[in-house]
């Protein structure tokens, strides 16, 4: 099902400055469709609703697509966008293709309704294996809807590949030698990590601004066709989930009484604020 780099693509590689046989990378980028981050979220009869807010690619995943595009521009290769979702959840894939991904795979099965992260990672791992021969699987840092940030490491664990999380820089990627070096971010310090390939990498915002899709890219993406795989296509049973969400609620907003600090001069306002903060016992 997967389009192998065709002659046109091959031509593109041959023009690349860093392209050398054996150094081209096959990258799978995992992307998810989510409601816009500006959406007003409500719960109606237990069901989550974002009204008529637009659906978008998970913003964190744009950094992963951007990283994949830069790696392939440098050394040749192929990018496949992979999305697990309900049928018709095409925004993430379309955006990745419009940015420049070469092809896409959607995984969709009614049996996956309510799947937790471990279950979802089993499905992604199976799809990654079916696509086959990837050097790198890139993820975003986390989903802006469920906010878990678990899938990259869980998928890596299932594949028995190294997890390189919160990566802001690729120092080198060498599929020929099976090696990669990245800069990973932690609270206290950055870490230069050497690892074997294939590997799973989650890309953080610090990587750099993702590009906007070009007009041509958007046109190409709107016409793109890609396979939709079911669990049967992947050859796996429905993975069981242990996490359930019996209840979602709108948080009770605490009543905020805003007091505007008055004063003729900045000095007066400053003094008045300090007095209020003392009275509020936060100092």
């Amino acid at each position, binding site marked *: 099902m997967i389009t192998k780099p065709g002659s046109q693509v091959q031509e593109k590689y041959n023009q690349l400055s860093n392209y050398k046989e054996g150094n081209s990378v096959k990258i799978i980028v995992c992307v998810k469709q989510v409601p816009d981050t500006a959406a007003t979220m409500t719960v109606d009869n237990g069901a989550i609703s974002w009204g008529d807010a637009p659906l978008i690619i998970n913003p964190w995943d744009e950094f992963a697509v951007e990283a994949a595009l830069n790696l392939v521009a440098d050394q040749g290769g192929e990018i496949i966008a992979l999305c697990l979702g309900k049928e018709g959840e095409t925004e993430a894939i379309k955006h990745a293709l419009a940015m420049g991904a070469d092809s896409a795979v959607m995984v969709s099965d009614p049996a996956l309704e309510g799947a937790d992260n471990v279950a979802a990672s089993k499905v992604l791992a199976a799809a990654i294996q079916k696509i086959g021969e990837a050097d790198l699987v890139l993820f975003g840092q986390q989903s802006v809807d469920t906010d878990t940030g*678990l899938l990259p490491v869980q998928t890596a664990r299932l594949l028995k590949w*190294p997890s390189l999380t919160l990566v802001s820089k690729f120092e080198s990627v060498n599929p020929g030698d099976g090696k990669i070096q990245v800069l990973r*971010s932690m609270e206290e310090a950055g870490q*230069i990590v*050497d690892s074997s390939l294939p590997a799973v990498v989650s890309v953080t*915002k610090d990587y750099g601004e993702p590009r906007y899709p070009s007009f041509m890219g958007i046109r190409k993406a709107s016409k793109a066709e890609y396979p939709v795989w079911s669990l049967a296509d992947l050859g796996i049973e429905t993975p069981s989930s*242990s996490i359930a969400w019996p209840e979602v609620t709108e948080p009770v907003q605490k009543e905020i009484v*805003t007091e505007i600090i008055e004063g003729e001069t900045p000095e007066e*306002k400053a003094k008045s604020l300090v007095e209020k903060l003392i009275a509020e016992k936060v100092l």
Partner: protein
Amino acid sequence: MTKKILAYIDHFHGKAQPSSWESLGLAAVITKDLGGETAALILGEGVNELADTAFQYGADQVLLADSPILKDFRPEPLADMVAQAVKDYQPDLVIFPTTSRGRTLAGMAAVDLDTGVMVDVIGLDWAGGEISTTRPIYGGKLLAKLTCSTSPQIITLRTRAFDKPEPDSSRSGSVTALEVGLNGAGVATSITSHQDKGGGVSLSDANVIVSGGRGVALNPALEPPADLDEEAAEVWKAEQGFALVQGLADVLGAAVGASRAAVDAKYIEYDHQVGQTGKVVSPDLYIACGISGAIQHLAGMRSSKVIVAINKDSDAPIFNFARFGLVGDMHAILPPLTSALKEYLAG
């Protein structure tokens, strides 16, 4: 329905993330109510001192593995050790702090142990011995109640959502050394070097945060050096603005935060970004300077106890979420505010 709880102590080269102790505080509350015991899990090299601290914060016993293989943060061998410790100790509940490392190890251990993870938990209920958790989703716009049907239950706690216990220096206990059945050769990753992150007060653990937005660069009174191009001149102005923010933060012992607009314009590093695509914080006091209050920024700081907004636009949305609002130019207000606070705090 007693509970055995295992708390993972997250640290960098022996220096604990303060939120690790919040897990022990929560564990103590649960085991006081239901009975049971709490063990702290400490993995690393040269980490014996952390065991003493863990006892002071409430651990009944410590499971400790000390090995050069575990010195640097490499998820694979560490996750192997977590899974092994869980199999040995058989806890009902495993608690990690929601740090970069805690989240990673919780997720990997869950795969090994064939169970689920509830991340970024802000509330926990154990009525009748059945544990359920509450966590924010959609950037805090909704709250989900979660349950886990498999054992052990693994959770990560949002930093500062649970109280840190008072350390009790009279407490001690027994340390069980875990066998490290790994050899370094089998590990696929190696750490070549570390790049320091200038220190400063950490955003996630801070009691007080002073943040700057696009307004830090908007001071018409400033005249940048003539040899700078437009972009460099803007960054130069922003540096003067952030110096005022830093000055106030220093007086308050606060961390410095920023909006995404300030980060994207290269006024300050990404590590300082607060919000949906930055850090989620909940200090006692959050002072927003020249920040409009976009929904994605609010997602990161709305749970702060007291919010102060300094903005020259009286219609800025941030004022709807602020306890105190100062309408005016931050460049004019921050210097007298800093000196007034300095005076007060000096006694």
